[in-house]
Each structure stands twice: as structure tokens, then as C-alpha cells.
């Protein structure tokens, strides 16, 4: 005689869970008796060692005898017919009554064939007859309609767990769904009101090893009525023992893994039952029942009813899952519509997206968001700090596999620096809003450690102190939490889809906006061209009559000056002078119009050469006014239009000469480095200065600060043109002045940044 060990003390290590041969445990749970019968004589070939306790006959004496010996005569023949039939499962449960030593024992017999063996499992029952069929039928009917009427998945799950709890009376019944990695999320529960809620909690895939999941697919239901059991070993006739351990894949009494029992103990459960949920043939989830207030045996018929609930629920999964989060989806859609409407209406759609702020967050169920558009960031809710955000955006932009949508519940797995801000952004959805340019909408979720509260450790660490390896609930909880640090709640499908949808809308809007901009630009271009030719035509047409007035007046004055009274003579002279002023105004206006139009020819230019050529032209006037020109050190080279820069210098120097009433006049031209590495040029004089209130208006066209003929006169366009020229170089112009003490005009040339400047003179 040979027995298979039930392996209660087998060494548990970190790797054996997946390998543990749980379908051949070599023992059963002792609340029933397992018999392996040989057909057709129904000889007992194998029997669990607890036979004596339940049947009153020692197991060893049963081996080799016929089943009939246990039964009353009339029962034996009907049972034989049932057991030998092809579809013996249809007759389950078989109502058995044994009579041993004058005592009757009632059993539910559950029979199945597997690998050529007839396996009969006997569970004691107090009822001789089957449970009233109608009771079950009515229950099943109402539960079926409740399940069928569930509006979505969570409603379906809730109905199912209520139904199972009602049927069984377990302290807690939960329904959970596996994710792609076989982690389970609790979707519904029905429990003792005094116990903690497991709803929304997660537990790791390793809680249910691969081979256990395979058995779950084969069997709809497992029960452990009392987890503190001693497995009853299977005794076999010697010939059978040689065939290897009994495959108990379909046995209801099959002893469960000691690791699983330990696990249940850690949870504080004393009994458990689980029902498989399958979707299209694949294990989808479980209805899991636990009892903390003692052992819990569930009669066969009730188990069948629960199994039925599981099967029926499974058949509904496809349709109900389609309706999952129906309300939230609808809600997301309406938020989407509102956001879209606001974005289209608002000139800056990023503003439309973020005001009022909660909607963008609600769209994906995020706690924070950042809209990063064309270098500008708008933050809503909880978000990483500016630098952290910039780092994150840089990382997203530099990702080797840029995706339209990047979504993770554990950002630090991808971007380790994110660990620093996991309390606001452990989870991220990043929607890239444009190709090439890096514009993003980012949604954040904080780290949520407490979401995983179900016991169990993904790595199943084992305490090897002492003889028996043990899982310690506290420790494993803590470790498991440790392993899930840095994780946020997972993003739901509809939330990710909402982000994707928003991305599409934004891209549409951006595209539409850029088309509008293109159109505007084209119109602007055209109107510029028109304006340009208009300026020429206007100046031409204005000058023509002007020339006539001028010439005729001049002729009259020249040919007959004597026929005028002195007053009229003066008036006639004024007419001539006015025509000339008008001509110069027209010319200035035309010139100003040209500044904006003509193309700049930007090249690396030695400004010292430009300056000296300007000074050469201005030399006669410099000499006339006795102006000292100072150039403390050579100007650094700049990327600019040589001709335009000459005009700038000419204008500024002319002004410096003109607006100066000092005895010793001077003008200084120089350059200084800026902290940003650029160069600021300046033209400084010791002239009359400009009052602060005029520092801006002085650049306005035709705005003069002095009388027409004071300081040599002028049209008031010079500085306007200079400023425009500087701006066309992407530069900036401003001034500092002390009335009476002089003025300094500063300007930068943005263009110089386009190419590296050697910057000999720059500091």
C-alpha cells in the first residue's frame, strides 16, 4: 500500500507557486469522502483515509470491495445504473444512504469520470431528499432577470454578489475582474455591515497562480468549508498507486495548496468559496466568498445555484461590459462638448480649455493638469513644480517613440525622475497636440498606496525562521504596498478615450486656426502690397500739384518780385517754403512705408566700418557744430543689414548733433554685453535730453518735441524709422535721458543671435 503525501509541510519558496502541482495534491478536504471506482463492478480502488470518520468503515477495509457493500440493496441497483450511465454528471447529486453498524448516513454523491477513472465524492447531508426544486427555480428565475436587467457591468456584478450572498450566507461576497496582468480589481461586494469594504481594492496577480487559473477555467466553483483542516490522504490499491497520483482537476473535495490556505488565514477567513467568471472562454474574474465567523459549508444544490449565477453572469459579460461606465462615458462626452465649444469660442483656445478649470480634470478623472502650448504653461489642480514639469515635457519631447497619447499609472517606471513628484503625478496621460512642436495636455494622478489593501504579496516572500515557512500578513501587506509605491489608480478605458478624443478636437481647432492665420497672412500680404503701391501713387499724385505750386510761385517771385507789397512778398515766399516742407513730409512717409516692406539683407557686418562711413558723410556737420565723436572701443560684429544700420547711425548721430546746446558737444557710440550673452549698442550724447514723459511718444511718427524750425527742424519720422529698422532686425530700442544732461539711445539686434557672434569687443 502506498500513499501520496498531502505535502502539508512542503518547502514553500518564491518560485514554487507557479509550479505547484495543485491538481494532484494527493489529499482531499475531509468534509467528504472520495472514492475511485472501477467500472463496471464499481470496485473501490482508491479511497480517502477519512472514510472511517464519515462512513464508519476503515478506508483500508474498503479498498478492493464493491461500492454496493456500503449501500442498502434497493439503492445499490439504482445507483449502479446512474453511475454506469454515459452522462453520469446529469444525475448529480446522487442521494446516498449508507448503513453501517445499524446507523444510517445520508450523503450527496457527486460523480464524474476523468482519465478513465470513475470518481465519486460523498458529502454528508442531513436531508434525504433533494431540496425542493421550486424554491431554487423561483430564486433562479428572479436572479436571472435581475442580472439581465443590470444596466452596466458594475450593476451586473452587484446583483451577482448579492445573489450569491443571499444563496450562501457568506460574510463577504465580492466580484472582481482581472486586468491584463492578472491583477484583480474589486468591482462589487456584498458583506457583513460590520466588516471593512474591499470595493475598489486591488490585489496582485500572484495571489492566483497560473495553474490555479487554469483549474478555475475548468471548474466553475471551489469551496473550502473549513480552512483549518488536515488533508485526508488518498489510499490506493497497490496497482493503482503505480499509476501515479490521482488527477483531481474536477474533484470538488480536492485539497488546496497550503499557500492558499495560509493566504486565507492571513485574510482572517475561515471558509471560502469562489465561482469562476468566464468571458468568451477566458477567465475574466471571480466571485469570491469568504467567511470570517467560522466554518461554512454550502450544500451541493446551493453551490449549483451559485454556479448557475456565475455561468449566467458570464454569458452577460460581453453585453454589460460594453455598457461599462455608461454614465461616466456620457458625462465625459458632455464635458468634451462643452470644452470644445469653449475652445472654439475663445481666441486663445488654451484658455477655453482651462476656464473654468474643473472640467478638464473631470474629463479624465485627474487631480491635476497642465496645458503646455507654444511655450506657455497653464496649470490646474495638483501638478509638479515648474522645473519638474519642464523636465517632464523635455523628456516626453525627447522620447524615442513619440506617441500621440502616452498613458501610465506608474510614471517613475518610465521616467525615474518622476519619483520626486509621485505625490501629485504618479499617473500621467500626456496627449501630444501637434507634430514637431511640443505642445501637450498633461493629466496627473497622485500616488495611491492604500489602494492595494488586500493581503498578499506579489513576491510571496516567506519567513524561513522556524521549521514551517510562513507568510506574515502584516509584513506581506507592508511589502506589497512597498512594491506598488509610485503607482496611481489606473486610468480607465473611457478616461483614456476621452483624452484621445480631446486631442483630436484640439488638433482640429489648431489646424483650423492655422488655416485662418494663413488666410489672414495672405490678406495682409496683399493689403501690404496695395498699401505700398498706394504710398507711391499717393506721393506721386501729391507731389505733382505741389511741384506746380512751387514752380509757379518760384517763377512769379523770380520774375516779378517788385509787384508785391513786402507782406505779400513774404507770403509768397512762405508758400514756396511750405511746398518744400510738404514734399519732405511726403518723402518721409514714403520712406517709412518702405522700411517695413523692403527685405533686409542680413550678414555678418563690421559695424565699425559702417560707423566710420556714416561719420565720413556727417563730417561737415560734425565740424560745423564742433562735435567730438567718441568710440571708446571697437563695436562687435553683428548680423544685420549694412545699409539699414548706416541709416540708423546716421539718424541717431544727426539727432545727437541737432539737439545739443552745449558748448562742448560730444557723442559716444559703443556696445555692452548683456547677461543673456547678447549685445546692447548705444549712442549717447550730452545734448538737451528728453523728458521722461516723452520717452515713448518720441518714437511716434510725425511726433516732434520742438518747434518746427528749432534745432534745425525735422519731419518727426527719423526715430520712428530707426525704431522700425531695429525691430525689423528683431531688436529692441529704448532710451535713457536726463533732461539737460543728455540722452542715450540703446538698441539690440535680435538677428545677431541667429549666428554665433565671435564678439571680439563684446563683454
Amino acid at each position, binding site marked *: 500500500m502506498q500513499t501520496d503525501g498531502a505535502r502539508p509541510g512542503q518547502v514553500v519558496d518564491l518560485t514554487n507557486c507557479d509550479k505547484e502541482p495543485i491538481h494532484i495534491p494527493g489529499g482531499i478536504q475531509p468534509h467528504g469522502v472520495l472514492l475511485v471506482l472501477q467500472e463496471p463492478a464499481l470496485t473501490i480502488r482508491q479511497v480517502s483515509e477519512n472514510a472511517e470518520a464519515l462512513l464508519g468503515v476503515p478506508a483500508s477495509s474498503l479498498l478492493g470491495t464493491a461500492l454496493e457493500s456500503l449501500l442498502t440493496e434497493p439503492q445499490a441497483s439504482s445507483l449502479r445504473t446512474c453511475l454506469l450511465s454515459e452522462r453520469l454528471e446529469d444525475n448529480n447529486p446522487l442521494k446516498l444512504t449508507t448503513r453501517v453498524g445499524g446507523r444510517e448516513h445520508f450523503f450527496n454523491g457527486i460523480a464524474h469520470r476523468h482519465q478513465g477513472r470513475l470518481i465519486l465524492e460523498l458529502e454528508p447531508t442531513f436531508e434525504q431528499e433533494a431540496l425542493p426544486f421550486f424554491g431554487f427555480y423561483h430564486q433562479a428565475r428572479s436572479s436571472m432577470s435581475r442580472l439581465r436587467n443590470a444596466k452596466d457591468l458594475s450593476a451586473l456584478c452587484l446583483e451577482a454578489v448579492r445573489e450569491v450572498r443571499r444563496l450562501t450566507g457568506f460574510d463577504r461576497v465580492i466580484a472582481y475582474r482581472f486586468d491584463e496582468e492578472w491583477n484583480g480589481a474589486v468591482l462589487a461586494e456584498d458583506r457583513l455591515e460590520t466588516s471593512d469594504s474591499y470595493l475598489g481594492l486591488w490585489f496582485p496577480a500572484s495571489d492566483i497562480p497560473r495553474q490555479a487559473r487554469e483549474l478555475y477555467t475548468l471548474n466553475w466553483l471551489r469551496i473550502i468549508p473549513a480552512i483549518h483542516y488536515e488533508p485526508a490522504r488518498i489510499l490506493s490499491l497497490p496497482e493503482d498507486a503505480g499509476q501515479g497520483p490521482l488527477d483531481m482537476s474536477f474533484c470538488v473535495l480536492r485539497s488546496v495548496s497550503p499557500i492558499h490556505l495560509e493566504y486565507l488565514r492571513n485574510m482572517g477567513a475561515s471558509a471560502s468559496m469562489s465561482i469562476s467568471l468566464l468571458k468568451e472562454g477566458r477567465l475574466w474574474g471571480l466571485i469570491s466568498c469568504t467567511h470570517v465567523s467560522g466554518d461554512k459549508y454550502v450544500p451541493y444544490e446551493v453551490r449549483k445555484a451559485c454556479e448557475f449565477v456565475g455561468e449566467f453572469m458570464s454569458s452577460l459579460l460581453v453585453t454589460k461590459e460594453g455598457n461599462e461606465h455608461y454614465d461616466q462615458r456620457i458625462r465625459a462626452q458632455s464635458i468634451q462638448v462643452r470644452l470644445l465649444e469653449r475652445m472654439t469660442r475663445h481666441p486663445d483656445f488654451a484658455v477655453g480649455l482651462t476656464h473654468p478649470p474643473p472640467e478638464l480634470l473631470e474629463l479624465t478623472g485627474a487631480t491635476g493638469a497642465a496645458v503646455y502650448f507654444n511655450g506657455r504653461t497653464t496649470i490646474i489642480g495638483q501638478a509638479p513644480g515648474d522645473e519638474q514639469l519642464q523636465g517632464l515635457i523635455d523628456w516626453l519631447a525627447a522620447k524615442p517613440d513619440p506617441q500621440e497619447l502616452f498613458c501610465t499609472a506608474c510614471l517613475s517606471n518610465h521616467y525615474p525622475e518622476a519619483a520626486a513628484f509621485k505625490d501629485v503625478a504618479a499617473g500621467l496621460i500626456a496627449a501630444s497636440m501637434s507634430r514637431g512642436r511640443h505642445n501637450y495636455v498633461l493629466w496627473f494622478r497622485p500616488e495611491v498606496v492604500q489602494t492595494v489593501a488586500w493581503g498578499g504579496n506579489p513576491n510571496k516572500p516567506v519567513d524561513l525562521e522556524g521549521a514551517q515557512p510562513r507568510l506574515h500578513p502584516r509584513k506581506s501587506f507592508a511589502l506589497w504596498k512597498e512594491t506598488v509605491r509610485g503607482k496611481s489608480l489606473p486610468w480607465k478605458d473611457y478616461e483614456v478615450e476621452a483624452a484621445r478624443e480631446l486631442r483630436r478636437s484640439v488638433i482640429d481647432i489648431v489646424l483650423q486656426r492655422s488655416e485662418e492665420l494663413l488666410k489672414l497672412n495672405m490678406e495682409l500680404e496683399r493689403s501690404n502690397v496695395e498699401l505700398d503701391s498706394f504710398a507711391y501713387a499717393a506721393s*506721386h499724385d501729391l507731389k505733382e*500739384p505741389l511741384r506746380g505750386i512751387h514752380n509757379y510761385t518760384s517763377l512769379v517771385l523770380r520774375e516779378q518780385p517788385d509787384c508785391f507789397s513786402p507782406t505779400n512778398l513774404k507770403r509768397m515766399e512762405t508758400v514756396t517754403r511750405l511746398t518744400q516742407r510738404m514734399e519732405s513730409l511726403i518723402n518721409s512717409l514714403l520712406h517709412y512705408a518702405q522700411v517695413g516692406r523692403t527685405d533686409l539683407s542680413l550678414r555678418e557686418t563690421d559695424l565699425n566700418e559702417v560707423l566710420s562711413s556714416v561719420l565720413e558723410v556727417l563730417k561737415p556737420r560734425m565740424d560745423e557744430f564742433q562735435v567730438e565723436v567718441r568710440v571708446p572701443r571697437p563695436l562687435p560684429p553683428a548680423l544685420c543689414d549694412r545699409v539699414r544700420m548706416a541709416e540708423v547711425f546716421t539718424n541717431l548721430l544727426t539727432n545727437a548733433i541737432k539737439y545739443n546746446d552745449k558748448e562742448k558737444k560730444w557723442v559716444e557710440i559703443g556696445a555692452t554685453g548683456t547677461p543673456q550673452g547678447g549685445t546692447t549698442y548705444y549712442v549717447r550724447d550730452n545734448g538737451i535730453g528728453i523728458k521722461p514723459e516723452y520717452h515713448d511718444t518720441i518714437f511716434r511718427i510725425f511726433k516732434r518735441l520742438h518747434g518746427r524750425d528749432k534745432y534745425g527742424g525735422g519731419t518727426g519720422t527719423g526715430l520712428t524709422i530707426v525704431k522700425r529698422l531695429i525691430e525689423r532686425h528683431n531688436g529692441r530700442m529704448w532710451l535713457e535721458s536726463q533732461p539737460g544732461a543728455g540722452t542715450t539711445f540703446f538698441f539690440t539686434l535680435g538677428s545677431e543671435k541667429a549666428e554665433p557672434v565671435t564678439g571680439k569687443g563684446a563683454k
Partner: protein
Amino acid sequence: MNRGLPILVVEDNDEDFDMLQMTFQRVSIPNPLYRCTEGEEALEFLEQTGRYANPEQAPRPGLVLLDLNLAGLDGRQVLEHLKNTPHLKSIPVLVFSTSDNPKDVQSAYAHGASGYLLKPVDLPRFERMIQLFKDFWLDHIVLPEGEAREGVRR
């Protein structure tokens, strides 16, 4: 040396033409002066067609002073036509305009103008310009004779 050659002035502005005429007298330009006020008319003059079908009325000019902004067919087109017509293209054309638009200047030379004179709003400058014109174009420059026309007319 070119004193006998007719000069055609294409100018729509009476005052400008008046000044031109007066200044021509003032600086003693003896050349016969013809005037057209429109582009179309100028072409008729040059081709001796339409209004100028009688060749006596429209001798082949030795030089054309051409204003650019004309009503109808404008000076630019007149220039282009003239320079694209084989028997006319040897006639020097001096543009005489108010516009200093670089594009106008550029296009005038590109189409074969011999010079570009800017009308000033300044009488002395104007007179100096006409004086120089006389010295240069009428006293020193060798201009082509009208032989091409004879060829065309047979």
C-alpha cells in the same frame, strides 16, 4: 550737334510740361518739341498712325522724355512697346518721373531706358537738371539718325 532732332515729351501734366517748355527756352534748347499726353497717343505718334497718320505732324524723334504715370496706357508700357519694336528701339528714352520707387527705376532700366530723371520740387534744381540734359544729350551725345524709319517706310 543734335539740335535739329525733334524731342518727344510724353507728359500728362500741363504744369509740368509748361515748366519744361519754359525751361527749355530758358536754357535755349532749339530742338522742335512735340508733346503727347497719353500713352496711346505716344505710340500713335511714334508709329505715325491714328491721330498722327500724317508724317509731317509726327517726325521720328531723336529722343523721348517719358513720364511714367499716365492715364490709360502708362509710361512703363510705352517704354516696353518702344523697346520691343525694332525700328524704334534705337531711340533713347529718358524717363522723367516723380516716382523714386526703386522698382520703377529698376524696371525702367531693365526695359531699356537710357536714363531716369527725377522731377524735383525745387525750381533751381529743375533748371539745373534741364541744363545738364541739354549739355549732355543735345550737345555731346551722339544720337542715332532716323535711317531705321526710312527702311521701314521704303
